[in-house]
């Protein structure tokens, strides 16, 4: 069994040879009226004209200018790169711990309203909170923030169990300054 199809048998090849020979017969007898002068004209047209001495000097000067410009630019870039490494460079270092602080808008609840009333316009609109403790949007969307840990902030709201009444937690607003409990 031939995987690539049936091959061409000798008899078929004879018939194909005859058909192809017959088909190409008019083409084989074709002559083209092209003169050799046309080739010479093409060669002469494409041949580069010899340069005069003046044009050669101009070309030499041009190449010299290009080379000097390239060398100058390279030297300038190299010197600039060395100066950048050797000189004193002041890098602005980020403040420690500031990279994980984000600003979030806190919903206006009772305690925040109290703080706004007490501090007036001096109260910041946003709180600096730890990014790790920010509740996800899916979890608390539409719900008040239960716990916001403020990094050195003004307000902390926690749930503190009272010693005498374990079953009933009391929400206590503790203010760092101790003004409100």
């Amino acid at each position: 069994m031939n995987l690539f199809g049936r091959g061409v048998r000798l008899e078929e090849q004879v018939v194909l040879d005859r058909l192809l020979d017959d088909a190409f017969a008019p083409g084989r007898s074709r002559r083209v009226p092209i003169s050799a002068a046309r080739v010479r004209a093409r060669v002469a047209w494409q041949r580069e004209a010899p340069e005069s001495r003046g044009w050669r000097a101009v070309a030499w000067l041009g190449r010299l200018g290009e080379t000097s410009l390239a060398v100058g630019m390279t030297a300038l870039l190299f010197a600039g790169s060395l100066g950048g490494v050797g000189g004193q460079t002041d890098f602005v270092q980020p403040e420690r711990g500031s990279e994980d602080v984000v600003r979030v808008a806190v919903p206006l609840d009772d305690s925040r309203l109290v703080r706004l009333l007490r501090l007036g316009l001096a109260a910041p609109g946003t709180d600096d909170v730890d990014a790790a403790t920010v509740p996800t949007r899916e979890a608390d969307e539409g719900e008040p923030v239960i716990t916001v840990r403020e990094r050195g902030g003004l307000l902390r709201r926690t749930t503190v169990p009272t010693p005498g009444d374990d079953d009933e937690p009391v929400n206590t607003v503790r203010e760092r300054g101790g003004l409100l409990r």
Partner: protein
Amino acid sequence: MTRRRAAPAADAFEERTDRELVVAARTGDMPAFDALFYRYRDGIFRLGLSITKDPSHAEEIVVDTFARAYRAIDRLEPDESLRPWLYRVAVNLSYNRQPRKGITFSSLDDALADVMTPEEGSPPILAERAEQRAAVLECVDRLGDKHKVVVVLHYLNGLNLAEIALVVGCPVGTVKSRLHYALRNLRTHLSAHPGLSVEPTVALGATGSMELMRSQGQV
């Protein structure tokens, strides 16, 4: 007088080999280069015409090929045959000038039909023969580029397998394989044509292949 002098000169060039003409052309002998040009001009034109299907492109290919040959005459190895080198340049130039897809200047049979020499025979036979040629050339046109160039070089330009291998730049075995697959594809295409009978049982009949080949003068 001039004719009597020119004719022996032309004969002298025709008798000289490619190598002798190349060596003479290197020394600036322009008639020797012209003799090379007139020797291979028609074959390169036919090759260019079969690939580009445009006579004006084919003429440009002839001129470009020999202009390149003139510039490279010092680098040409006279030991090697000049013909495969010229055909190789012509094939590359032809592929560069190949018509883009969707644009057809004229088919191969159209390009050749205007130069068909008048043949003897009754009008019905001539018409039938012309139709057969058109069908075969149409099937050749439908071949892929690699197969088509091998068929054209072999059947139109008369190059042997070794020369075709030099032209297309691959081993002789590859050329054989391409020619075989080209003939197989042609057999498939031609079998589908109602006016042609490629099947040997139909073509040869009960007389046998040798008798048919003898009648066609192939044996």
